[in-house]
């Protein structure tokens, strides 16, 4: 029983435009969606820039009750899950509920809702013994983010294995990797899987301020996210969601589905080093890449493009550059590497899935998205980071990597589906 897992539907909500098409256009045009934060008055904070999604829940078809009970990140997930199912060409009636599962990745859950509701029940932080009389009825759903997976399951009619995967900033890769495992082992034929986060809230901004992880480049928000650039000084917070329909290859073939990409390999490792720090040698990420390639039965030379974590902190950019060299050897120097965070910011748990979407679309369209704002490379980052302008290039195999607080290092190999049919 040699099962293989393919992506047959993509749903995206990203900064800079609603839907998968707008997302891809932004990336290939090298435009940035990083702006001054408008959700709240960010002026007291060190970092005041973010990449926000232009999102109208009602326009996206959510009911008033759904809007009331769901955190923004959950709303994103439900909208992109529906879009992914529609994109897969599958009618909802075709889904066999018990054989369909859901995995939603999220680093910070309903942070935005929790931040807002806390202010109310605590009377602006004045009461330690917060007042339950002011609590909204859906507060439990904010407390435990598994509500995100529940809402998606209800929206698509899934009754198979359902969970949230929350491994910080690798959640988006890990959730898809987890869902893939469920299909490979036969626990499901279809998984609606991906990730969401909507962290642009005062508590998140403040906690990244406290460790100076986000950029203070407040006077130039459009150019604030600068992975691999010598003048970078921290990441730019983002938000968004990407959810996929993953299917067993045979299941997809039988119904004549369009195949975007095969998820040919996946692995994650942990650096066991520091909750926020990275070892400069990139060992654990390199090991994750090595195992993911092994699972995919591929060699380093098979990689046509690397979709990097590229958060735009000095520590990260050097860490993963070292990891690519360690895992791919000389081939690292010949492989285009780019970070879409330069354009849509870093949406924590969601970004890994947005990067999978970009990787699948790179295969589909034969275009590698650029790294925006890269004018003067960090001398210690000496690979080909595709500065400023997208590159047309036949792309059969993509390596997408992520790195997160807690020490998580993940790597996924996506490949052109015809290749999968050998």
């Amino acid at each position, binding site marked *: 029983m040699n099962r293989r897992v393919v992506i047959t539907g993509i749903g995206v909500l990203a900064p800079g435009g609603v839907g998968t098409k707008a997302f891809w256009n932004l990336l290939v045009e090298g435009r940035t969606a990083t702006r001054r934060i408008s959700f709240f008055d960010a002026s*007291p904070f060190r970092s005041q820039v973010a990449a926000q999604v232009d999102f109208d829940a009602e326009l996206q078809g959510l009911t008033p009750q759904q809007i009331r009970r769901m955190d923004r990140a959950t709303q994103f997930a439900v909208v992109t899950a529906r879009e992914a199912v529609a994109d897969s060409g599958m009618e909802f009636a075709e889904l066999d*509920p*018990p054989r369909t599962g859901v995995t939603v990745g999220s*680093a910070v*859950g309903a942070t935005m809702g*929790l931040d807002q509701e*806390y202010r109310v029940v*605590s009377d*602006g*932080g004045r009461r*330690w*013994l*917060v007042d*339950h009389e002011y*609590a909204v*009825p*859906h*507060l*439990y759903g*904010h*407390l*435990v*983010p*598994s*509500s995100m*997976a*529940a809402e998606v*399951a*209800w929206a698509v*009619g899934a*009754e198979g*294995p*359902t*969970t949230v*995967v*929350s*491994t*910080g900033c690798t959640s988006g890769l890990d959730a898809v990797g*987890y869902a893939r495992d469920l299909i490979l*082992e036969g626990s499901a034929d279809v998984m609606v899987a991906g990730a969401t986060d909507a962290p642009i809230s*005062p*508590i998140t901004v*403040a*906690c*990244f*301020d*406290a460790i100076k992880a986000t950029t203070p480049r407040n006077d130039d928000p459009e150019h604030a996210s600068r992975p691999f650039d010598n003048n970078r000084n921290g990441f730019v917070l983002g938000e968004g969601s990407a959810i996929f329909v993953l299917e067993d290859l045979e299941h997809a073939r039988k119904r004549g589905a369009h195949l975007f990409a095969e998820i040919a390999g996946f*692995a*994650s*490792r*942990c*650096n*066991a080093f520091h*909750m*926020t720090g990275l070892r400069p040698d990139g060992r654990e990420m390199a*090991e994750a890449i090595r195992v993911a390639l092994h699972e995919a039965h591929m060699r380093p030379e098979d990689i046509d493009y690397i979709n990097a974590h590229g958060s735009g902190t000095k520590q990260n950019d050097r860490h993963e550059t070292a990891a690519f060299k360690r895992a791919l050897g000389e081939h690292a120097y010949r492989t285009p590497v780019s970070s879409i965070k330069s354009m849509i910011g870093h949406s924590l748990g969601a970004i890994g899935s947005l990067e999978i979407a970009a990787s699948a679309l790179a295969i589909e369209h034969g275009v590698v998205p650029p790294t925006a704002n890269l004018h003067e490379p960090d001398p210690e980052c000496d690979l080909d980071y595709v500065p400023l302008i997208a590159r047309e290039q036949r792309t059969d195999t993509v390596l997408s990597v992520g790195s997160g*607080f*807690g*020490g*998580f290092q993940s790597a996924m190999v996506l490949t052109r589906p015809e290749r999968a049919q050998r």
Partner: protein
Amino acid sequence: MSSATVVTGIGVTAPNGLGTDAYWSATLRGQSGIGPLTRFEPQQYPARLAGEVSGFTAEDYLPNRLIPQTDHMTRMALVAADWALADAGVVAEQLPEFSMGVITAASAGGFEFGQRELEALWSRGGQYVSAYQSFAWFYAVNTGQISIRNGMRGPSGVVVSDQAGGLDAVAQARRQLRKGVGLVVSGGVDGCLCPWGWVAQLASGRLSRSDDPDRAYLPFDAEAAGHVPGEGGAILVLEDAEFARQRGAGRSYGEIVGYAATFDPKPGSGRPAGLRRAIELALADAGIRVQEVDAVFADAAAVPELDGIEAEAITEVFRPGGVAVTAPKTMTGRLYAGGGPLDLVAALLSIRDRVLPPTINVTLAPQYEIDLVTGTPRKAAVDVALVIARGHGGFNSVMVLRGGP
């Protein structure tokens, strides 16, 4: 390569006992850890009882440097992991670092830590938010801290599926062992007994409002009216049986032989609940027949509708009265992500000691046709046990355990 997943180490922080032996002897005595909340003044709230872990002083067990950067539940998780590894006789430095992983379940993260930082933010300003907030409250914190403390660099992960999550984490650990990892530290230790967490839990509408610790949490009882939340849980060391043998591990507590997870249909759809299917799939995964199962450790929601669904599923699969059913969590309260793993521990120790712990304080309501172990422990040769854990919203997870060879 062996495909058996064995449990070689256990670490427990439970409301009725700190450490495996204290927990188990209290559980067999029918001694409850449920009592009035002491962590904060609960008088103004409609629910005032909890299963607090008493006598836990983190400073006695952990480096001082870890204290300012950790929530209470993370400290308990780190200590439970230490105990589990010691119990398994694992010296992490002596094993290949990529052969060991950490996969835990979470529900609300370090919520008490988070409340302090939210308070700092909104009462004093952003510059008062701790440098540790960025990870101390997030859901992945226990996995990250346990991996760092023990130098474990293999596949790691975190799942969140409310109270079902603890079993899902152990199942994910088994998946990784089957892929060739040697050892995974798994399970869950949880808790958010702070005012902000309490108010959020109250919103579920499922907390018992009783002030009588003996009448507050009564699953399968005619007076069932919600549960008492608790804190704590269990961390397990899971190993590939061959890896355990090669490193010279001692006895194992037993083997994880089956697992399945399902999700309930959307309320109002008219479709059947998913629990029965999860039980059947887990048994099929284990290759174990219904009549081979000696005991069921119930989820025991203590919400009449949910008790009804669970009793019905058990009865449909095992026939009325066809299997012993128990809920030792009546002595701890519901521990969210920690609940499933603690039930796995109870099941493994039942197998070891040939005795089933009781469901305390409960008089079985006549409509449930299950053989509930009430009052005192029951002597029983338990070889195969099935553990049920359900999460708010419709998560059903079921795990099957068998005694070691």
